[in-house]
């Protein structure tokens, strides 16, 4: 049957609302924002403890350490990305909205990314300096983390959408998304390592940008489809 004509929300406004709703809910529980940062901080302090304080060795491993930790932090976050929406019935309502579910879900993903990945990228120079990463790598580190955490969050969203209805599926999510995250990790560390060695990291950054663009096009569709399946099981 046809839809009634009425002044309705534009697609962008609907996206914005979803973004705000989730951003507000995230900010309201500050722990959710603080935890990835704290985790990042703890792990970065732990590595010198575990590896011995040799500054040269630390500096050479800094890109890898920072990237692995960023990946793990994003994993922690995506574990419950759509969980509360599923439990409190918000997801059903999103599915009934006249806007595509994928766009609304993308609004939430964007809020999540801003609150974790983006935040992490912005503060990463502090951690990098703690590990003694040479300063010529800092800019590339931030840039690669910005692009990379976007990919990680989008992949995490797909995994989260697939597992949200599963009652006993906590760690299943990591099984689904870690293999898909491997290229991001490799491109990211490669870019920073190249920059630190004074070489041109633009190949890796381009690859990462392409990956992010592809994900941005593909992941929302997958998330939408996965959420509908989850609602229906």
């Amino acid at each position: 049957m046809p839809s009634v004509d009425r002044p309705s929300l534009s697609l962008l406004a609907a996206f914005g609302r979803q973004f705000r709703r989730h951003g507000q809910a995230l900010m309201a529980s500050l722990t959710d924002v603080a935890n990835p940062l704290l985790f990042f901080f703890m792990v970065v302090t732990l590595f010198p403890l575990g590896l011995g304080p040799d500054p040269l060795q630390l500096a050479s491993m800094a890109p890898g350490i920072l990237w692995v930790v960023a990946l793990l932090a994003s994993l922690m976050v995506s574990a419950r990305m759509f969980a509360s929406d599923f439990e409190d019935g918000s997801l059903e309502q999103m599915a009934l909205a006249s806007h595509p579910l994928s766009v609304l879900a993308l609004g939430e993903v964007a809020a999540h990314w801003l609150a974790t990945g983006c935040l992490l990228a912005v503060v990463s120079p502090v951690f990098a300096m703690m590990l003694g990463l040479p300063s010529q790598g800092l800019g590339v580190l931030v840039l690669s983390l910005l692009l990379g955490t976007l990919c990680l969050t989008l992949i995490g969203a797909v995994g989260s959408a697939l597992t949200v209805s599963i009652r006993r599926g906590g760690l299943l999510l990591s099984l689904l998304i870690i293999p898909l995250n491997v290229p991001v990790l490799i491109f990211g560390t490669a870019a920073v390592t190249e920059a630190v060695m004074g070489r041109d990291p633009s190949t890796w950054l381009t690859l990462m940008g392409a990956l992010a663009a592809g994900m941005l096009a593909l992941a929302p569709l997958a998330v939408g489809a996965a959420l509908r399946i989850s609602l229906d099981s």
Partner: protein
Amino acid sequence: MLLLSAADVSIERGERRLLQGVDLSVASGQVWQVLGANGVGKSSLLRALAGLARFGVEGSIARFEPLLYLAHAPAIKGALSPLENLRCHPACDITSSPAQIALALEAVQLGGFEHQPVGSLSAGQQRRVALARLLLTDARLWLLDEPFTALDGAGCDWLEECIRGHVSAGGAVIFTSHQPSRFSELQQDLDLGSYAVS
């Protein structure tokens, strides 16, 4: 005007067939109460009518969209205030201004609680936040799953008035409730007991 028509609908959940051969057509101006014992499949039917369930649902269902569906779970975030919750409702069907939303909250007796986190409201007050949406939507078909739950006497009367107003303005309502019928002259009953697969 026909707002919903379902023909020969059968519903299966978890490998078990619940309902078979449900026929229903709902025209504007009608109030339907879905009846049946606990676990007979009322909520499952409402979800199927809303279009949320596809796997395990057979038969043809046509509906007038957009519709409003209110489930057992109220789609309300405990960390947000009533105002924020309605402003950014996940169904994205509320285009009203904050002032209008505040008026709707006033109407459900939540004046003064607009900015308190919903999680710290009482059970009935949380339900009222979800119901305030009825005043703000322009959907013509409402599917309400146990809307009277947790409401006090005054709240139930308000909801009754609200539903009456909606159908007299050309809308239609399908709701489930275990309480005695309130809309005697308007109301039609769909007793799922007769469609249940034993």
